[in-house]
């Protein structure tokens, strides 16, 4: 319905423009590099470089896999925690998640390397754990935020617990849950650069070697695509949050 989707279009447009810019940066980095070299010093010409589209693929796979798994788990846990019979689970999850938030992701990474070795695995674990929290918390808050009168009216009219959840509580909690998903994915995109430090690839690779060799252009080669990717994800999710399901009556 155009009436209710009016608010989404600027965000879809912005997301498309940013995505185009992202692809341009990935496949035509040389253009941006020559622009950067007008003001920044040239170094490390001879270092072999992994093509950006390879780094992009690594980064996207890492983010997509960890985010998807984390969301699925957070969603299920969040729903379970809001069941009337699960007060203890809810208390436990809230306590765990506030504890986990005080832990920097770099620390999780550093701690998991001795357990899981270098490379993809420790990064995967750290990103996965980190991506759970915003979705979990927003799922709980979103479902609990549904007005008591609405739940009372639904039960009084003969909804059972399951249809109450799917037809009333989740649709009403959706904006809050989606905001959690957006925050989680954006954090994940930037946190995934840390994986390069333990050999997981991604856009962190040029950033790390650029920092080591004090090469600002190399740092930009990693940080510009990451920033653009985060912006694409952010605007695309904002567009989804502003979209409305079609009316059925």
């Amino acid at each position: 319905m155009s009436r209710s989707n009016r608010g989404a279009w600027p965000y879809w447009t912005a997301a498309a423009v940013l995505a185009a810019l992202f692809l341009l940066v990935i496949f035509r980095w040389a253009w941006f590099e020559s622009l950067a070299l007008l003001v920044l010093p040239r170094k490390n010409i001879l270092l072999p470089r992994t093509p950006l589209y390879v780094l992009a693929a690594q980064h996207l796979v890492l983010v997509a896999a960890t985010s998807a798994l984390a969301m699925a788990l957070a969603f299920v846990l969040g729903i379970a925690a809001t069941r009337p019979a699960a007060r203890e689970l809810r208390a436990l999850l809230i306590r765990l998640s506030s504890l986990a938030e005080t832990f920097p992701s770099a620390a999780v990474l550093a701690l998991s390397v001795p357990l899981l070795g270098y490379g993809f695995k420790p990064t995967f674990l750290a990103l996965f754990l980190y991506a759970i929290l915003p979705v979990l918390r927003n799922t709980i808050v979103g479902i609990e935020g549904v007005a008591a009168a609405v739940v009372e009216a639904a039960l009084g009219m003969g909804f059972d617990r399951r249809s109450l959840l799917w037809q009333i509580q989740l649709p009403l909690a959706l904006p809050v849950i989606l905001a959690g998903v957006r925050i989680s994915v954006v954090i994940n995109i930037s946190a995934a650069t840390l994986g390069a430090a333990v050999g997981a690839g991604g856009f962190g690779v040029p950033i790390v070697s650029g920092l080591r060799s004090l090469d600002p252009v190399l740092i930009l080669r990693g940080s510009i695509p990451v920033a653009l990717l985060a912006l694409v994800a952010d605007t695309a999710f904002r567009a989804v949050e502003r979209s409305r399901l079609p009316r059925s009556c």
Partner: protein
Amino acid sequence: MISVRGVSKRFGELAAVDRADLEVRDGELAVLIGPSGCGKSTLLRLINRLVEADEGQVLIAGSDTRSARPETLRRSIGYVIQSVGLFPHLTVCENIATVPRLHHWDRARIAARVDELLAMMGLDAAYRDKLPAELSGGEAQRVGVARALAADPRLLLMDEPFGSVDPLTRVRLQTEFRRIQRRLGKTVLFVTHDVEEAVRLADSIAVMKAGRILQHASPGELSRSPAGPFVNDFLGSDYGLQLLGRFRLREALELSAAPAAPRVAPPGTPLLSAEATVKDALSLMIASGTDRIAVRDAERLAEFRLADVLRVLGGPA
């Protein structure tokens, strides 16, 4: 229609409802009234099993409410609450269609029913696609009532349904609702703490205190023989005046057995419409310092006197 037999419900130490007995006849509008915390809402919720009774039995149309799943039971009973509880993400149409959908009616039948109910509630078709946030308080209450009536239940449970709108709108909603209820012949159990509202709507009033039903009687009988000092105090010293609010001047003129030739009021007498109540008439007499007023009916002008006021309460109140 409803038969509550020795029902009790305790929350911890507190007996929210204490061995309550209540009979509501088919087509009757019964009001549960009492101070906050007297258990009237709990008693209402015991009937559709939003609260399960500790002891006792509730029969609806002769069958025990525990003989079906609570969801099935609730789908057969209309339910309206004070804060309305319209689903904010659904349009007016989708809100009204809630219970028909739970009953799996087909689209055409639902659409026709929604149109019918909107018309009945005096809302034009443009309201179909509005969201609850776009409605005024009174409109939202109307949609709430339409939603409760959607699947044509024989019984409606209403918990202070007009409690959150301004006084003028409330009176209008009460009058409209009473008319619709009479026309459709619905049985209604209505919770309120507002004596004036109870008197305006009720066929019978059940006064509750601390979980117990102290007296269940017609509004007139409550005033003639209250079951104790609490009932008397709760109804208030102006209960007689409230009772007068139940009678339209049109009905009062018939009761007062006006002479065959209409009594013609002298010019300058204060004037009221026949749709105003006897309470309005008395108030106008006091305000204008006269003992008689003129009542304008469709084609005639009649006189209504102070003495006629007393004759009204002698009638079947």
